[in-house]
C-alpha cells in the first residue's frame, strides 16, 4: 500500500518537474521579465493598486523564475504541499490509494492552471492542443528569454529547429543573434525576410514589442532609442519591470547619469533576485563609445545615418562589426543601393568588414557594381 503512495508522489513530482522545468520555464521566465515582487511597503502598495491582490500574488510566484531552476523547485514544492493537503482531505472520503491518486490528478490539473494563469497562455497549449498562434508565441518567449540573457547560439538553434522563420518577431530575435555573432551578412537571406521589419519591427502594438525594440536598439548601439523604448515599456508595466529597469540602469550609466541609474538600482534592490545586480562595467564602457560626438535628433537623417555614425565612432570594436552587419542588411532590405556601396567602400577591407565581404553583402555589392557598368 505504502509503496503505491510513494510511487504516486514520485510520479507526480517528476511530472511537475517536467512541466515547470521544461514546458513552462520559458513561459514563466518570460513573464518574470515584466513582473516581479518587491519587498517594500511602498512598492507593495503600488503593486496592489496596479495589479490587484491576485496580480500581486502572481508577481510573488513569478519572482522565483528569475532563475528557472529556483522557480521549478519552489513551485513544485508548493504544489506537493498542496497535494498532501488535498490528500489529507480526501482520506476522509475514500481509501488511501484512491485519495493519493485523486490528489495527484488535482495537483497536475492545478499545475497546468497555474502555468496558464502565471504565463498568460491557454491551458490547451500545455495539453498539446497548439494553435499556430500559440506555438509562435511560445517560440517567441523562448527566443526572447535568450535575447535577455544574450544566448545568441541558442536563438540560432531554436530558429533552425523551427525553420522557416516567418514570424517578424522571431526574425528580429534571429537577426539580432546573427548580428551579434557577426554572421548577419552571411546568413541574412537563409531564412525568410520581409523588409526592414525583419530587423526591427516598426509597428509597435504592445509594450512587450517595445521592450524587444529596446533590445534591438541596444544591439544596434543606438543608446538613446534603446533608453526611450525601455523607459516607455517600463512605464506601461507600472515602472516595475525588472528587465526594463536593468536596461534603464545600463543606458543611464552609459550617459553618465549615475543618480538616475542609482534610483533604478534602488528599486531593484528591493527584489530577491536583483538586489545585488550591477551592470558589467565592460559593457558600459563599450556601449559608451556608441554615443554621438555631435548631438542630433534620433533618426532625423534616417536610422541608417545614425547607425553609420555609431559604426564610425566604434571602429575596431565588436560593436562596429555588429552595427555594420545591421547597416548593410538594412540597406539591402530597404533597397538603398548607393548607400550600401558607399558603406562597403568605406569599411570593406578594414578590421570591421572583411574582404571579401560576407556572402550576401558581397553578392549584392557585385550585382550593384555590375549593374552600374
Amino acid at each position, binding site marked *: 500500500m505504502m509503496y503505491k503512495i510513494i510511487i504516486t508522489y514520485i510520479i507526480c513530482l517528476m511530472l511537475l518537474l517536467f512541466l515547470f522545468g521544461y514546458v513552462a520555464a520559458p513561459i514563466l521566465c518570460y513573464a518574470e521579465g515584466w513582473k516581479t515582487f518587491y519587498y*517594500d511597503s*511602498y*512598492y507593495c502598495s503600488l503593486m496592489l493598486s*496596479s495589479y490587484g491582490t491576485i496580480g500581486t500574488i502572481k508577481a510573488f510566484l513569478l519572482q522565483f523564475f528569475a532563475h528557472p531552476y529556483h522557480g521549478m523547485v519552489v513551485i513544485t514544492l508548493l504544489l506537493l504541499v498542496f497535494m498532501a493537503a488535498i490528500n489529507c482531505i480526501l482520506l476522509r472520503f475514500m481509501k488511501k490509494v484512491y485519495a493519493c491518486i485523486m490528489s495527484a490528478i488535482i495537483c497536475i490539473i492545478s499545475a497546468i492552471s497555474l502555468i496558464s494563469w502565471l504565463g498568460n497562455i491557454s491551458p490547451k497549449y500545455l495539453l498539446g492542443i497548439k494553435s499556430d498562434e500559440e506555438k509562435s508565441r511560445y517560440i517567441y518567449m523562448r527566443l526572447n528569454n535568450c535575447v535577455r540573457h544574450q544566448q545568441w547560439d541558442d536563438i540560432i538553434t531554436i530558429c533552425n529547429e523551427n525553420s522557416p522563420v516567418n514570424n517578424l518577431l522571431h526574425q528580429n530575435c534571429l537577426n539580432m543573434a546573427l548580428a551579434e555573432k557577426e554572421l548577419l551578412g552571411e546568413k541574412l537571406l537563409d531564412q525568410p525576410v520581409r523588409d526592414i521589419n525583419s530587423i526591427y519591427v516598426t509597428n509597435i502594438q504592445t509594450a512587450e514589442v*517595445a521592450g524587444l525594440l529596446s533590445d534591438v536598439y541596444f544591439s544596434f548601439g*543606438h*543608446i*538613446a*532609442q534603446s533608453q*526611450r523604448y525601455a*523607459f*516607455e515599456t517600463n*512605464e*506601461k508595466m*507600472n*515602472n516595475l519591470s525588472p528587465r526594463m529597469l536593468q536596461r534603464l540602469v545600463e543606458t543611464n550609466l552609459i*550617459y553618465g*547619469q549615475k*543618480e*538616475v541609474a*542609482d*534610483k533604478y538600482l*534602488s*528599486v531593484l534592490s528591493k527584489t530577491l533576485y536583483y538586489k545585488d545586480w550591477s551592470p558589467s562595467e565592460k559593457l558600459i564602457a563599450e556601449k559608451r563609445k556608441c*554615443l*554621438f*560626438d*555631435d*548631438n*542630433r*535628433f*534620433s533618426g*532625423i537623417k534616417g536610422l541608417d545615418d*545614425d547607425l553609420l555614425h555609431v559604426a564610425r565612432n566604434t571602429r575596431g570594436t565588436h560593436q562596429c562589426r555588429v552595427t555594420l552587419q545591421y547597416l548593410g542588411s538594412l540597406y539591402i532590405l530597404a533597397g538603398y543601393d548607393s548607400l550600401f556601396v558607399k558603406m562597403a567602400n568605406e569599411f570593406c577591407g578594414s578590421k570591421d568588414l572583411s574582404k571579401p565581404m560576407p556572402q550576401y553583402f558581397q553578392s549584392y555589392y557585385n550585382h550593384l557594381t555590375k549593374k552600374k557598368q
Partner: protein
Amino acid sequence: MNRKVVINYLLLCLFLCTTMTSCSPKRQNATPLKIKPAIYPDYTEVTMPCNIAPPTFALCQPSDKAHLESLQAVFKAGNEETVVECDGDNGFCISADDWHSLTQANNVISITIQGHDGNKWVEYEPFNITISTDSIDSYLTYRLIEPGYEVWNEMGIYQRNLETYDEEAILTNKANDVGCMNCHSFCNRNASTMSLHLRLNNGGTYIVKEGKTNKLSPSPSFVYPSWHPEGRYIAYSQNETKQMFHTTDRNRIEVFDFRSDVIVYDTQSGNVLTCPQLHSPLTFETFPSWSADGKSLYYCTADSVEIPADYDKVHYSLCRISFDESTGKFGEKPDTLYSAHVLGGSISFPRESPDGKWVMYTHHEYGNFSIWHKDADLWMQSTTTLHPAAENEIIKLESPRSDSYHSWSSTGKWVVFSSRRDDGLYTRPYIMHWNGKTFSKPFIMPQSTAIHDKKILKSYNIPEFTINAFTANDALLNAIE
C-alpha cells in the same frame, strides 16, 4: 483577591511606565565630529513656514567610513527638546505634535544628529531650520506623471495638504480610459474655480466653477491657462507642438512649437479674444499669464524659425500688453520686459507676484520647454522698469539642474517650483521663502518619510498653490464620463 489584582495591575503599569521612559531616546554626551551632516532631503539652513508638515530626513553616511549606529536627531528650540530615533530608510520622522511644540517655542530649530561609532557616541555639528511666521497656502496641486517620451500609462492630478502629508486625487486618468490630462489652473488660488485640459478620450478643456463643470465646445486645444483675477477670462495658448529625442545631448528630449498663439476665452460670452500682437503668423506667442491686478497680460514671444532645423535658435522675449477688462480690448503697444535679442537666452512661464512688484520666469538657453533643459533657472525682475531689463536688474536663482514651472503663494511670501536638482530626471516640488529682498534656500516639499521621493518614479508636474481643497470631484467626473 480584588485588592491583589489591583496591586498587580498597578505594579504592571509602573513597570511599563518605567520601561517606556527608560526606552525613550535621550540626548547623549557625544564627541563632536566637527563636520556638518549630509542629509537627504537637504533641510539644512532652510526657512520653513510655521504651518507646514514636519520635515523628515535621513543621514547620508559616507560609504568610505564605518557607519554610525543607533542614530538619533536632537531637535531643540528654546527650552523645548525632542530626540527622535532614526527609523531605517524612513529617516528621522518627528511627530506633528513635537514639531509644532518646537515651532511655537522658538523661530530657530537646531538639529543635532548623534550616533554610536562602536566605541562612543559622536555627533555632527548642528544645523538650523528657521521657522517663518509667514504661513503657506494649505494645498499644493500637481500632476503626477512619468518624465516620459511619447506614451504614458497612469497619471493624475493630486492635491496635497501641506499642513499634513495627506495627498488626494482630484482626477486620475482612469476617468478617461488612461487618456492624458494637463494644464490645471486655478483662479486666484481658489480650488473651487479650475480649468484643466484632457487629451484623447473625452478630450477638451473643462472649466469647474461654483461646483459645476463645463466643457468648452467645440473642443479646442487650449493649453497653458491663466485665470484673470476677476474670474471672467482665461488666457490660453494654442500650440502646435512636437517632440524629438536627442541622441547625445544631456537634455534628452526636445519639445518645440511649429506654431503658437495666445488667446483669451471669455467664460461669460464664450467668445475668444485676441489681438495681432498675440496672434501673429510671423512670431510664436505662448505662456500667457495675467498680472495680479488683471490690467495686463504677460506672454513670451519669439521670431518664428524653421522647426525642427533651427530649434536651438528660438529665443523667447518676455512682453506685457495692457488689457481692459470692461471692454475686453488689448492695448496697442506691448512692453518688452526681457529682450532675448539683447540679453540672449529664452523665457518661459512668467508669473507676477501677488503684490505686483515682481515677475518671476524661467530662463534657459533656447526654446520653450524648459523642464528638459538642464540650464533652466528661475530669474526675477521688477515689473516697474519700463525698458527691457539690464543684466544687473535681474535676480538670478541658479542651480546646476532644471528649475522650471513655478507659482507664488497667495501672500507672495512663498514660491513653489518644479526642479530636477534631486537626480536630474524626476521633478520634485521645491519651496522657498521671499522676504521682499532675497530668497531663502529652497527645500523639497516634506513627505512622511525621507525615502518617499527616492522611491516614487513619477514627476511632480505644474505645482500650484491653492488656499482651499478642491471638492468638486464628482461634478468633474460626471462631466468627463
